[in-house]
């Protein structure tokens, strides 16, 4: 009997051992959305997390410099057989299933979602009021920038206004996105962000009042609202925060990062990997082969070289084979022909092996180019926006002041080139300003949209395959259309 009780006790014990929460294992080493952000410190972390979007490879037009490639400034680049699917952006044969189209879209929305993670909790986190407003303003600036990129690239887009959008969301009109998100967000940012000079050294590179004004002027310019474009561009100019660096080449050098003319740029450190603060943007573009800085995509076109002519800025814009930059001799890639001709007669040059020098970092290993700070908004750009808007607003004399500031700096020590422009003819000046942008901002991702917004795209890019009424916009990614089951409609003339 005793033994029976003993055995029954044992069995009961063995088969009943369990604790209520044995199967509850929360993640270790991670927070979940249920517990973050909760403190003022969290809010800063989450804000930095929004900036982190700018380091994601796909943020940069889906990884490859397709905006430059779609313009007349660059071709696919790299060696002939590498990533040939990028050629479809050079000749406008891409369709909605191109992976860059999808990844660019998704990454922009990723930044938008990250921004709402901050703003949704800022309202109740206990923290210093000034800090709350600054963080909110930083995040709203970035969100506006993401949306501005979306509407320029894709036109009407789904309007996501929280971290958990509805499962199905149709596209909202561009003007709704501008008027309800981009403009109010930038206005908020303008009000609450400090000026560039007001940041302490450790925070250099965070978005500033000047950045918000400058971006807003660019937004209005793109919308052909020249009155507002002029207004905000002049606010930047008159803020006294920025001057043109006298040396054009220095603007893009390592030493020129966050320089006097820098309004908004993406900070990066010389480490291969976003985890360590590196940015692969320049690595994708920079010299292939020797020095081994990158993959060499977005090769400056022969036309661009011709167009520069004697403009001294060419030397700081394009890396030629054989050139020595900051002590590093460029011999380039063995798998890329030095010269490619249009046909077997080898008379007409199609392209030569050369690279984008604006992303060049002195070094011999890929990780150096990961440290390049991509310049998003430069003072020269704002000066040219001001010039363009003033000209459109029939203030050609003022326009010339700003245009000639840019040319003067470009001229450097060579007085025989780039004479001051004196014409006040509106049409002529319009073309001259556009050409000035072409040279000053070459290979920085502006040209394609400059051509689109000035309705010059068909004229300039038509021979490359650009179709008017279609290629002004990217297609909506195929997956978005497919998954939406008809709620999201494709852009005109795309399959």
């Amino acid at each position, binding site marked *: 009997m005793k033994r029976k009780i003993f*055995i029954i006790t*044992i069995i009961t014990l*063995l*088969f009943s*051992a*369990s604790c209520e929460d*044995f*199967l*509850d*294992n929360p*993640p*270790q*080493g*991670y*927070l*979940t*959305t249920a517990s973050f952000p909760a403190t003022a410190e969290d809010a800063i972390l*989450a804000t*930095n*997390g929004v900036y*982190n979007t700018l*380091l*994601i490879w796909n943020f940069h037009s889906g990884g490859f410099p397709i905006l430059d490639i779609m313009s007349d400034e660059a071709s696919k680049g790299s*060696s*002939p*057989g*590498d990533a*040939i699917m990028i050629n479809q952006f050079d*000749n406008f044969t891409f*369709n909605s299933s191109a*992976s860059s189209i999808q*990844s660019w*879209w*998704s*990454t922009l*929305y*990723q*930044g938008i*979602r*990250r921004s709402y993670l901050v703003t949704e909790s800022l309202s109740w986190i206990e923290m210093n009021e000034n800090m709350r407003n600054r963080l909110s303003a930083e995040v709203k600036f970035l969100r506006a920038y993401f949306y501005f990129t979306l509407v320029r690239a894709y036109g009407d*887009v789904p309007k996501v206004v929280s971290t958990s*959008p509805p*499962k199905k969301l149709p596209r909202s009109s561009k003007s709704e996105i501008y008027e309800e998100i981009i403009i109010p967000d930038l206005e908020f940012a303008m009000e609450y962000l400090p000026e560039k000079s007001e940041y302490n050294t*450790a*925070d*250099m*590179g965070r978005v500033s009042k000047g950045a918000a004004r400058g971006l807003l002027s660019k937004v209005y310019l793109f919308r052909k609202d020249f009155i507002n474009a002029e207004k905000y561009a002049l606010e930047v100019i008159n803020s006294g925060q920025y001057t043109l660096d006298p040396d054009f080449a220095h603007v893009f050098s390592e030493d020129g990062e966050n320089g006097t003319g820098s309004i908004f740029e993406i*900070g990066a*450190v010389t480490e291969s990997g976003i*985890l360590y*603060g590196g940015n692969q943007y320049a690595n994708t573009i920079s010299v292939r082969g*020797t020095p*081994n800085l990158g993959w060499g995509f977005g090769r400056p076109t022969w036309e661009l070289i011709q167009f520069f002519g004697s403009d001294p800025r060419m030397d700081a814009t394009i890396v030629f084979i054989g050139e020595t930059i900051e002590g590093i001799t460029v011999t380039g890639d*063995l*798998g890329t022909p030095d010269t490619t001709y249009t046909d077997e007669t080898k008379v007409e040059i199609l392209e030569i092996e050369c690279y984008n020098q604006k992303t060049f970092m002195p070094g*011999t*290993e890929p990780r150096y180019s990961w440290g390049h700070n991509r310049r998003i908004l430069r003072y020269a750009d704002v000066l040219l926006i001001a010039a363009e808007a003033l000209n459109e607003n029939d203030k050609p004399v003022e326009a010339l002041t700003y245009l000639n500031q840019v040319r003067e700096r470009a001229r450097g020590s060579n007085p025989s080139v780039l004479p001051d422009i004196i014409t006040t003819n509106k049409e002529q000046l319009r073309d001259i300003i556009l050409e000035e942008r072409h040279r000053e901002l070459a290979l920085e991702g502006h040209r394609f949209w400059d051509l689109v917004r000035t309705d010059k795209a068909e004229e300039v890019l038509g021979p490359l395959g650009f179709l008017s009424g279609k290629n002004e916009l990217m297609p909506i990614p195929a*997956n*978005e259309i497919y*998954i939406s089951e008809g709620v999201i409609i494709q852009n005109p003339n795309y399959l």
Partner: protein
Amino acid sequence: MKLYTLKTCLRVLNKFDRNKIINTIIKSYMNILTKKFYTVLVVSFICFSGLYSQEMFITGRITATDTGESLPRANVLIKGTLRGTVSEIDGNYKIQIQPEDKILIFSYLGYESKEITIGNQTSIDVILEPVTTGLDEIVVIGYGTVRKSDLTGSVSSVRGKDLIKTSSSNPLQALQGKIAGVQIANSSGEPGADPIVRVRGVGTLNNSNPIYVVDGVIVDNISFLNSSDIYSIELLKDASATAIYGSRGANGVFIVTTKQGGSNIEPQVSFRTELSIQKLPKKLDILNGREFAMALNDINPGTINNLDAVDNFDWQDAVFKNNPLMQSYDLSVAGGSDKLNYYFGAGMNDQEGIIPKSNYRRYSIKLNTKYKAREFLNIGNSISAAYTDDDVAPNVVIAAYRAWPIDLPFDDNGDFTEVRGTGNPLAAIDITNNNTKTLRIVSNFYGELTFLKNFRLKTSYQLDYRNAKNRNFAPEYYVSATQQNSRNSLSIDFTEDRTWIWENTLTYNNEFGKNRLNAFVGYTMQQRFFESPNITVNRLIREDPIYWYFNAALTDTVQISKGLGDAFTNSMISYLFRTNYSYNNKYLFTVSLRADGSSKFNEENRFGYFPSFALGWNVTEEPFFPDNNFINNLKVRASWGVIGNEKIGWFDRFSLIGNQYGAVFGNPEGLQPGATYISTGNDDIHWENTYQTNAGIEFSTLQNQLIGEIDFYRKKTDDILVMLDIPGFYGFGSFQRVRFNAASVLNQGLEFNFTWKQQLNDFSYSVSALGATIHNEVLSIAATTPSDSVIFSGELSNGKRVTVTRIGEPIGSFFGYKIQGIFQNEAELDKYPSIYGQKVGDFIYKDTNGDGVITSDDRVILGSPIPDLIYGFAINLSYKGFSLGFDFNGQLGNEIYNGKNQTRFGIYNFEDRVKDRWQGEGSSNTEPALSSLAGNYETSEYFIESGSFFRLRTLMLSYEFPEKMMSNLGLKSIMIYFKGTNLFTLSGYSGYSPEISGSPLSSGIDQGIYPITSYYTMGLNVSF
């Protein structure tokens, strides 16, 4: 039986009740072929026992290898006589012998008979091994054993002695071609690499690896085990057998039983050593220097002016070692007393890789003990420990494939030179210093209480512990612009992974009348903890290993980064139940149910229930079955059940925030920490369910010389957890996916296994053949989720995805363009649609949808990585001490995607098929010109090759010295053997080996695998 012995016997019997005994004997001799044979011997023996009372005795004990327990009523017979005895209940026997008696024969139903020379011994302990094809063979199933004749499920067994036929450090490799329905692919020849194992097709889009149960402990692989320590491996295939493992059984369960000691036996010591030489079975056919120079001239005319002046360097010869060695040494001691029995094994395996710096060493220890504490209480343990020291190979296979054969590795000073392609492969080897040291301990401690005669209560505590340290050092070096490192670094990763399981089972076992009943219930708790902190130090001021631990942080040239890596805890609670019932040995019935609760799912979806039912019918036991000797045994069985798969990440239901999302600010610039979303979880996920139906037939015929087994299986997995694309505007990031229960896959096929065995005097032979067909088909994807119903995967390193998983096709089918020919002239270039940049001499991709342009919509299914048939067959011959065995295996009907040929970022060496390239109109319609690299490297059928192969997996010749000679030496046995592994392979595939596997969605893609080697082995076994 010799006639004179019979006469003698009869004379002696005069003294007794003569008629009765004679009748018995005659009757028994009539039945000499039946099972009653031994009973007769016993009876015969009894009649002799009184006659030789003054003679000497031999005593000993008979035990079984499989259970380690003593065998009662086992027969002992003196060879050439009718004299014998049977063992007592504890396995002990005592037999009287005559001076002229030389040999004792020990036998037991269901076990192989054993002959032992008496010599001068007075005590002989014997361990009998079960007959591998016998019906009363004991088969290990989940949480228990069952007689083969009572088995209702589909279970295959492989014995330990078959495991040592293959030269390999991993016991799984020996199972290739040995079990119907399992595919074991050696995807890498790197020493210590685990093969990829698929049981009955690919049942899920997630982790499709089976589980392994080593002496009761559930583990994820068995690379820590030494083949010599394994007694048997059984594979549970159908739901009836695997459902008892519930959520972990869906991909098959391997039950590994290690060797045990025996009660009251003298220590038996065995020693085995092997020495192998490895060879590269084939080299890739790639261009030599001159051919490559000609190719260069095709690409860029005039590159090489003098073809006769180019160098020719064979990079494959340079990176692969000649005759790397593999050696192994095993020692084991098995024995036991009344109360304690033990098995102790120690092993050492040392394999050089065919690529330098990829050596592998394993030191293993195995200790199994069992102690009978009381009449009703057993306690015991099973401990395996292995320490591996693994040099991780530099990835030079692809480098040797790509390197330009016109470049030499060294300059005149002996320094590395620039090698075009992907850098200097020899330099790549030189700079590699990557090593992983792992300690793994798998143990099981248990206590077993027997009460009320039929009940057995067992509790066991199991621990699977793995501790690994990887140390990787990259020195500072400069070979060329594209092969350099200006900053040395040392990184050390630690991993601790431990799982404990507490398992309690209660078993009831009874026979009453014609009924045999076995029932058990169980309760288990399990928890796994994993962490992997790591540290990286840059800019070490000295590169010599002795200074690696110099406290570098104190100098300003050093950068240190630390990460806490990953950590997680998972737990599971399970309830188990199973009943086996058989009536009159004829009708068999099994029902089982397991409930698993896992922390990977939320509270509502936490528990999954996995039932199974099975029926069996031993037709030959029926009275109506003709009692002829043609069909000796016939059984039909059928089963149905549900099994699960929970091999998904612990985090899939959580939306996680990570803190590695910083941004760079400041002057000087620095990374400021940031945190945001890492991944998006789906809290609604629940268990995947696999519904498996199995119908089988087992038979033996022609006096049990031919035995066979045929099974039909149908395995349908529903609610497969699959990562699906979600709309980009959700903001989860590009190519981020979320896990949903949203796919369904079918696997069905036929498995067969036939063995023919015949004994002709001293010569015996056997021939066996087995195989399985697989029909794999995706039935649905994303029917109810906001996602695309097609999954593209199989990403090459250039980002191209070459597989598709979609409804109606096998999982991970190859997907790309068809080729219709080559543009022979400008007219054709104008006539057919082309892709951008294509020229004359390039492929004409087929416009399959006929819309006049080549787009991604023209891609079609090009093949499947899943074979239609996997087969193996074996021939074994033995004559006296000699035996010779051949094992073949192969597969049919799958394709391989030659990804390494497609992935070209620049100009690399070419495969020699380009020698037939297009060089002008009409010169080729299948091999494109080399002039345009752009147009011919789309994903297309050009890169598809046949994956069918036929291989002589092992050939083994052994000789066992005669026992007489051994007993004079005081030894039990000596065997020497020679064997070859992977001696030849018939395959149409151009790569090193046709065994290319991978994860379910990206399988069969060759991106440059570590070659599988051939082994030429010499071995010696000694036991005493």
